[in-house]
């Protein structure tokens, strides 16, 4: 099994005619994702590799029954694109766009928080249910179908962890990159709840970063409710305070959000915390054996 996404998910790509949007649409189709429509305002009526393009998301929903959206529009227009997808009734929105102003995302987050919609990202690689479908920019071939769920704030570091798992013949149920921004639609805790409830997921890898307190909140939840083995890593132990380490959300502010603090809380919650990012795969292998 998998969470959020499978072979039946009907995806509309917002920003399908842009360079990122068109390239990754082809990649997603190649992987097996059911891309049913594209949206580029002003290009309605044209098509991309046989996929019909609409002016609005609501037209794509009406005509092609799209139920998930992949957003590749540039940062100034991305918040608007998310809200348009929500209004059109899309239930799963994956926003890849990097560089959206925090103020815009604050508005979006508060506007949608009580609605029946799941936003992944922004500034994320997306999500993949190996062997089934992917919505995002991750390389499909490193993944392997299986029973470990992966949730991470990062992109390439997630690929690293996935590769380690696949090399050890540990497949993945679903891998979710939740994004590196301070304001994101889904937190660790949201995805971990889904993995915990998914009978097809037997173990969870969680890869955090310095900044914020989302890892601590997830740890509290795991301690209370999760019986499946969880392996954790926090990137940025050597990061200096007060500097934004690439991701807008990866910053130690006012002495809070350090890697050491997060790792301590996670260990206390019974998570198998690895010191080195090279040990993520092996730690999961051990944890599954001792289950």
């Amino acid at each position, binding site marked *: 099994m998998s969470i959020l996404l499978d072979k039946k998910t009907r995806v509309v790509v917002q920003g399908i005619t842009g360079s990122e949007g068109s390239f990754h649409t082809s*990649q997603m189709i190649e992987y097996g994702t059911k891309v049913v429509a594209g949206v580029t305002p002003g290009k309605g009526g044209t098509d991309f590799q046989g996929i019909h393009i609409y002016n609005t998301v609501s037209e794509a929903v009406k005509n092609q029954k799209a139920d998930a959206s992949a957003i590749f529009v540039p*940062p*100034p227009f991305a918040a608007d694109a998310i809200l348009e997808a929500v209004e059109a009734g899309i239930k799963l929105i994956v926003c890849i766009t990097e*560089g*959206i*102003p*925090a*103020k*815009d*995302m*604050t*508005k979006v*987050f*508060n*506007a949608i*928080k009580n609605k029946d919609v799941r936003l992944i990202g922004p500034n994320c690689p997306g999500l993949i249910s190996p062997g089934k479908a992917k919505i995002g920019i991750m*390389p499909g*071939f*490193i993944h392997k179908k299986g029973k470990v769920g992966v949730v*991470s704030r*990062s*992109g*390439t*570091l*997630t*690929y*690293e962890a996935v*590769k*380690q798992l696949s090399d050890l013949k540990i497949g993945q149920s679903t891998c979710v990159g939740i994004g*590196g921004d*301070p*304001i994101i639609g889904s937190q660790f805790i949201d995805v971990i709840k889904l993995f915990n409830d998914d009978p097809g997921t037997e173990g969870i890898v969680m*890869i955090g*970063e*310095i*900044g*914020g*307190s*989302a890892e601590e909140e997830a740890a509290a939840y795991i301690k209370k409710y999760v019986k499946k083995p969880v392996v954790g890593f926090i*990137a*940025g*132990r*050597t*990061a*200096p305070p007060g*500097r934004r*380490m*690439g*991701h*807008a*959300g*990866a910053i130690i502010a*006012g*002495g809070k959000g350090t*890697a050491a603090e997060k790792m301590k809380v996670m260990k206390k919650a019974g998570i198998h915390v690895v*010191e*080195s*990012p*090279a*040990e993520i795969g092996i730690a999961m292998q051990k944890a599954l054996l001792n289950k």
Partner: protein
Amino acid sequence: MKIHEFQAKELLKNHGVAVQDGIAIKKLSQFDKAVGALKKRGINQFVVKSQIHAGGRGKGKLYDPKTKELVLEGGVKFTTSEKKAKEYAEKMLGNILVTIQTGAEGKKVKTLFITEGLDYKTELYLSILLDRGVSKNVIMASTEGGVEIEKVADETPEKIIKVWIDPAVGIQAFHARELGFGLGLTGNAFKDFVKFLPKLYNAYEKSDASMLEINPLIITNDDRIVALDAKMNFDDNALYRHPEILAYRDLDEEDPLEIEASKFSLNYIKLDGNVGCMVNGAGLAMATMDIIKLAGGEPANFLDVGGGANKETVANGFKIILSDKNVKAILINIFGGIVRCDRVAQGVIDAVNEIGVKVPVVVRLEGTNAEEAGVLLVKSGLNFEVAKTLQEAAEKVTVVLKK
């Protein structure tokens, strides 16, 4: 992005916020004119304030850049004498200010803010920032003004009061009343605070600030609320729509290597270690720094070359890493998902040939065409340590550091 106090005050003033009045100067020759203008505004006591992008200025020390001798204690000086003010200005401008936040090397004072000296009875604390936990802006206030807020938060957290602002509704009068009563304000000071706060919040909101701190916020002897200091940071992602704020950028306050890197769209942060690293992706870059430390080295930098790692980005990355003389080895860690590793490898080989890299280079390329990449690196005849896994890369770093 950070800006100076005098710039923050100008921005706040433009939004109708009551700030301590002042004039910024860059040369001592501008001093008399500035003070003359302030005197015309009825000001007869002055504060001379060093402008650098670091806190703790008041308790900092000024040193002569050549002789390294101590010139003045305190980077912010109050005086009622115009003559004395000029003396202070002379001792600050062009000298090095060392504060608890600058590190031992300090920062050169290139601008002074000559301001009015206000008589006040109370110092308060006020700040606005994004609370990631609830995805709303939070306004924090405290009666403990003039001290570090982290200290207050640690020792007497009950003395910090907070209100959260719903972005759809914005700031309302009740928010201001809640904080005003919470701070124990009464009479005209309370009334003034209730007018002050929404203006301050709107200045923060409209300018896409990520942090605004007024410490101290004062109640003057005549019961006015005035921002005596102002510190503002801005959301880099929103600068595209604020050319007026981008104009405040002071390149003198930034690391020259970081400025150079940003020209090539490289995300570089200089650190103090001995192993340089070049990585694609911020999370993997942080993880690579961590593994360097575990391998017995210290990361010399954070460098994210982004999604398109090609010959140019790799060459520019090398140049920037190597201009740091502490670098004894370099670790390249690229996970090629969409990027092809053989192309990255060719980029690395070309760059090393072109620049003449003398320090050992550990290369780990994983993902699409990783094997072809390994063959290219070995065949190049250059001095690469090729690693297949992250673990192996760490071990090779340990080995080359011991050589």
